[in-house]
């Protein structure tokens, strides 16, 4: 992998090739490997190594970006030229800010930013194809023992993200990641579990395999239920799958563009009083770099307090535009370190979401025991936005959907289609578990609890 010293050298070479007022370079470098299995065999098994640079040049209100994974001198010269060619022909944008310097970056109060723990684990980086195959063999053994068919992945990676700009700012983040995802298939049912972490020692593939297998077995011969409003218990992966769709709207630019469901709603009681959400890159269960696309410190931001949306996040430019705009102002208007690399039209978003623990977290069993009739959902699938302002989302349940009766799992049920407003859903949370690091396929990883939600809106049912 690229070191920060090598990156500094490349940055100096890039600067020499540029005639721009300002230059910024984003670096990426890494190795990853993924062993994929299906039908109880390894059928795909891959590894890659890659690194490169993304060069932004700026000329008085005009800026553009060009990227390459070739770092020889000729390629660096060409990528600088491409960036400058794209920038020079633009109409100047008076709102484009100079790049930040280290003093601006460090102008953050101590309670808003703390450095995250190390997210690089040598043991995770060192996992070999043989070790991944051993792990898969153990998962397959669980499937064989239960007479099931299994499919899934076991992956690991190490990577760096870095930023240098011509005003002296630089930052560097090194991380590892390991992930296991397991589907167990029976004749007419299935179960699923997934987990990832920077530290492979936090993963327990055998426990995941056993849980997925139990779900496949317990949901066999699924019965068809009538669609309608049900009390649901969403496991953490299902919670993140669905709530992830609203965080694109928690940025100042989305408000300015009037494409956010929070327009005219910030500061109002939008969700239930038991909903509290922060964005916190330093949370011990979180992941990722502590700086944004311009190198600003990624601060802790309390987004929702007792169901009221208190703040949104801001890139530097968005904060300036918001100060000048006529849009209603709520909370402090200042950069929070959540901007995407410039230039972009999306602005920013919070991506280290933590749904805070309730005062009295409940286990899944406790949530079920207080449920006369409801649906337990393992996972959601193919979620899409039906209505952007009421935040109605549609999607399917998948890989382990159960009828709860009289406080217990009673039977597997055929998968439902839902059309549910996130606003309604987060206003109807009756109970929550302790937050865990969860991973799904419909949204980014988060720290979220399981949730018990009343009147969840299922509109159709499929054939399995």
């Amino acid at each position, binding site marked *: 992998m690229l070191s920060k010293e090598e990156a500094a050298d490349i940055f100096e070479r890039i600067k020499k090739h540029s005639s721009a007022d300002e230059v910024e370079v984003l670096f990426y470098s890494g190795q990853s490997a993924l062993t994929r299995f299906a039908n109880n065999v390894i059928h795909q098994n891959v590894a890659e*190594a890659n690194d490169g640079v993304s060069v932004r040049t700026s000329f008085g209100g005009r800026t553009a970006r060009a990227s390459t994974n070739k770092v020889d001198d000729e390629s660096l010269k060409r990528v600088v030229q491409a960036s400058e060619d794209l920038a020079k022909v633009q109409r100047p944008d008076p709102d484009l800010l100079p790049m930040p310097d280290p003093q601006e970056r460090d102008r953050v109060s101590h309670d808003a930013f703390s450095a995250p723990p190390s997210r690089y684990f040598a043991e995770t980086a060192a996992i070999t194809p*043989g070790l991944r195959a051993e792990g898969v063999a153990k998962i397959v053994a669980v499937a064989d023992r239960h007479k099931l068919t299994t499919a899934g992945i076991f992956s690991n990676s190490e990577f760096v993200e870095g930023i240098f700009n011509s005003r002296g700012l630089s930052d560097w983040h090194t991380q590892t990641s390991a992930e296991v995802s397991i589907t167990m298939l029976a004749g007419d049912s299935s179960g699923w579990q997934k987990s990832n972490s920077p530290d492979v020692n936090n993963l327990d593939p055998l426990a995941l395999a056993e849980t997925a297998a139990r779900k496949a077995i317990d949901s066999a011969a699924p019965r068809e239920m009538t669609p309608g409003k049900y009390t649901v218990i969403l496991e953490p992966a299902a919670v993140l799958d669905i709530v992830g769709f609203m965080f694109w709207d928690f940025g100042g630019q989305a408000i300015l563009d009037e494409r956010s469901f929070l327009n005219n709603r910030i500061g109002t009681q939008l969700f239930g009083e038991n909903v509290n959400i922060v964005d916190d890159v330093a949370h011990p269960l979180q992941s990722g770099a502590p700086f944004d696309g311009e190198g600003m410190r990624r601060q802790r931001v309390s987004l929702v307090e007792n169901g009221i949306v208190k703040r949104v996040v801001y890139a530097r430019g968005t904060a300036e535009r918001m100060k000048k705009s006529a849009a209603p102002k709520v909370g402090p208007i200042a950069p929070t370190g959540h901007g995407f690399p410039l230039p972009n039209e999306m602005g920013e978003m919070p991506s280290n979401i933590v749904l805070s623990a309730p005062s009295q977290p409940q286990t899944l069993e406790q949530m079920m025991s207080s449920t006369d009739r409801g649906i337990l959902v393992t996972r959601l699938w193919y979620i899409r936005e039906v209505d952007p302002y009421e935040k109605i989302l549609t999607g399917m349940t998948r890989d382990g959907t159960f009828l709860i009766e009289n406080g217990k799992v009673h039977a597997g049920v055929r998968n439902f289609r839902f059309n549910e407003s996130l606003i309604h859903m987060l206003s109807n949370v009756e109970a929550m578990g302790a937050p865990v690091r969860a991973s799904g396929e419909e949204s980014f990883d988060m720290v979220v609890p399981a949730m018990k939600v009343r009147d969840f*809106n299922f509109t159709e049912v499929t054939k399995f």
Partner: protein
Amino acid sequence: MNEILGWALNLAAQRGASYADARIVDDRSRSLATKNGKLGHASDAESQGIGIRVIADGAWGFAASKDLSRAVVEDTAARALAIARASARVKQEDVRLAPEKPVTAEWTTPYRIDPFTTSIEQNLDLLLRIDAELRAVSGVTLAETGINFKREDSWFASSEGANIHQTKISTGAGYAAYAFAGTEIMKRSYPNSFGGQWQNKGYELIAELKLVENARRVAEEAVALHKAAQCPEGVSTIILDSSQLGLQIHESIGHPIELDRVLGMEANFAGTSFLTLDKLGRLRYGSELVNVVADARQEHGPGLGTFGFDDEGVPAQCTPIITHGLFTGYLSSRETAHIIGANRSGGTLRAECWNRLPMIRMTNISILPGEKPLTLEQLIADTDDGIYMETNKSWSIDDKRYNFQFGCEIGWEIKKGKRGRMLKNPSYSGITTEFWNSMDAICSRDQWTLWGTPNCGKGQPQQVMGTGHGASPARFRGIKVGSAYRGN
């Protein structure tokens, strides 16, 4: 490049691979976008590297590196072999590849104007003219435009002797107008949602799309939707425009016919398929009028699924998928062909870039147009009562591809053969085979468009691929409409 490919293949052979192939890919792309009269983004990107795929001890391994030096290429090939041997520890039988005659070939996307030779100023000016047209309409609160070019050069060689160089060029452009008022955000897009229209052709596509000419109408429709009636809930006859029908094909035909899904290889992520092997040649997928092909050949048109050879060196082909309503074909590869009794791959294995393993992907999955002349307006005139829906807004389907729900940006009532009042938030839902069996009319060739879907996701690690879908407007009877808003 042949010398570099040779380093990889030679090392694989020396270390005991029973099969190897290597692909060097050099990608270049440009993306320009505006928002509300200003630059959204302006970016160029290039990426080059080699991906090496081997079979050793009867199992697959793949490794990729951006470094094309001899030492690293050989090290990458060795890594692929080590991975294959690890794969072999958890196998039941050896990989079998359908025979394919190796070829030496050159293939290039036919184009008139190389989009990378057009000036940045010219393209930004075009986008800003569209933007001005969109924002000239009172009530438009957000205008977004974009244009994208891509060039992919690939060099493929295999241990069987194939040696293929391909150059693929694609162009895409589109825009959207948003209108926020009260408690509604309305949106209209052109020529299609989610980035517009994309084809494997040169810059000549841009003039064909008539982007500026349609901007005012599209913006006016976005604003007018605020005063439109809500799409009713119930059962109705529907007519879909060709772009929406293209996405319907993608989701409810294109994905379920992927043989890797059918065989469970995607069970953990993209899902499986209701099209189990027993259904080939037996399932009544649609009505007599439903004829669908998977056609990667240039003669089908400049779709995002058009190429000379797939990424394991198999020439582009046309496979009948649905023939007069009967299910007749899957998308296959050299590894999977024997499972359906085929003696050759259908030629659908493609990879997103050099660092990804090729996998079964849709080519151009298209419904053939009706044989009798029939325009959209004639189809509406022939419909006593129904809803016409245009341009996708939301799409969702279960992991076996049975139950779907689509929302469209705009709809119109049809009463006694006339297009009536505008409807907002139109949606429809159903079960795949019931839906396709309800199709009772499809417009003719002059109404047929080969749409591009640039963002099809599949695989772990996930790969994004462009696919093509040709379609004419078509009519469906007895379809559930409006349930997307039921209970909300």
